[in-house]
């Protein structure tokens, strides 16, 4: 039997998702830089709010972070769901990347919230609807990430995380109603429609949202790329070990 050992498909063609991610890293990076500069300029020259003072400028950071944080979790759950349907590890990498970037923005959200709160209402923390919801989101994120760390076996981790991601996503609207029920609508500044933003605040706000989303996209792309590389390297190592006759895996 002199045929060479069959090669497995570990030389997997670089996954479509990851190819996209790799290509996206550089352009989103530049875009991010541009957005950040524009945003910075706009924020600086935006008028100070009559009532809230300079702290009000957190407006240009806090809600944009919220967009990114919630988007992040939505993508995490989505990645998990697609993984369960297709069993393609690339989607699990999608999910973990979204979770790691999302939790970052969620942490930022929770950090900026109290700063704004202290500046406007004089208290570091209140149990109002949005803040509490964001706190709960953060806890779900953390639980998700801890679940992943403490589960052994890539495939099992991916499965469990996917199920938890979906449960977590389902619980967000439920939490909204729950907190509302418990009377948490009081203090948060009312929803900012275009008309409730004062003169000159619209553009910086929009710039903030765009910048945050682009930042999310850039970090997400990078993280996805890293995940793909790690996976490829692990597979190559396993393949090399097997060819050398060492056990690749313990029953």
């Amino acid at each position, binding site marked *: 039997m002199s045929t060479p050992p069959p090669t497995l498909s570990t030389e997997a063609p670089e996954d479509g998702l990851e190819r996209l991610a790799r290509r996206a890293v550089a352009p989103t990076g530049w875009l991010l830089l541009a957005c950040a500069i524009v945003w910075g300029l706009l924020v600086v020259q935006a008028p100070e709010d009559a009532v809230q003072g300079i702290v009000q400028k957190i407006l240009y950071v806090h809600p944009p972070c919220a967009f990114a944080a919630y988007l992040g979790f939505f993508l995490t759950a989505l990645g998990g769901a697609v993984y369960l349907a297709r069993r393609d590890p690339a989607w699990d990498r999608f999910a973990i990347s979204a979770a790691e970037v999302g939790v970052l923005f969620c942490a930022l959200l929770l950090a900026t919230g109290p700063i704004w709160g202290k500046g406007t209402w004089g208290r570091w923390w209140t149990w109002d609807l949005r803040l509490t919801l964001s706190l709960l989101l953060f806890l779900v994120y953390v639980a998700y990430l801890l679940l992943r760390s403490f589960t052994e076996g890539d495939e099992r981790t991916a499965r469990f995380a996917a*199920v938890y991601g*979906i*449960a977590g996503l389902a619980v967000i609207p*439920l*939490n909204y109603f729950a907190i509302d*029920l418990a009377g948490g609508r009081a203090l948060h500044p009312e929803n900012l429609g275009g008309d409730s933003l004062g003169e000159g605040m619209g553009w910086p706000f929009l710039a903030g949202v765009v910048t945050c989303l682009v930042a999310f996209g850039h970090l997400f792309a990078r993280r996805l790329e890293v995940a793909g590389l790690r996976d490829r390297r692990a597979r190559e190592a396993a393949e090399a070990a097997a060819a050398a006759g060492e056990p690749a895996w313990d029953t």
Partner: protein
Amino acid sequence: MWAVLWKDLLIEWRSRDRVLAMGVFALLVVVIFHFAAPAGPAAGGEATREHLPGLLWVAYVFAAILGLNRAFALELENEALSGLALAPGERGWIYLGKAAASLVLLVAVQALAALAFALAFDLDLVPVLLPFSGIALLGALGLASIGTLFSAVAVRTSYREVMLPLLLLPLLVPVLLGAVRATHGLLAEGTVPADALRLLAVTDAVFLIVSFLGFEYVLDE
């Protein structure tokens, strides 16, 4: 499904470990709350009475977690869980059997704890017994449903005792808030607020569906 329910209850009856742990825990909670937050006519008593529904439900939640932690532990011996997984058909039914068993245990403990609470804090539950039981059941359903799913998950992770509360508590907020609001409304005004009941019902439904479908993926390898 009934087979699994019967099996769980039979095993529990033989060893009684889960229900005892849960029951004792709930009683301890009552005792501690009594000392920590006196509910008599003295100063601060009124405030405590306000908080009683919350305390009761916190006790329920933690007792539930205690019981749920053990729900799948018994399946790990001799890999009995694989034995269940071999059964043909939809695995969601296995989930329902186990969730139902946890529900039965939880309701039993709820009754016990409610009794203890009523006695300790001089609450008169008899006039509102029926609606109270309804709320308790809805809440327990929420706890047992999502709890059973993640008990199966947690039992196969490291630090399994810590993992379960970690996973469950953020998800249990709607159940907790809904149940507390409902109980509070019931005790204070005599009627159950409809929006709280709606929240509980919707949450239960969502949890049951997610868990029934998700269990297949948890059991799959």
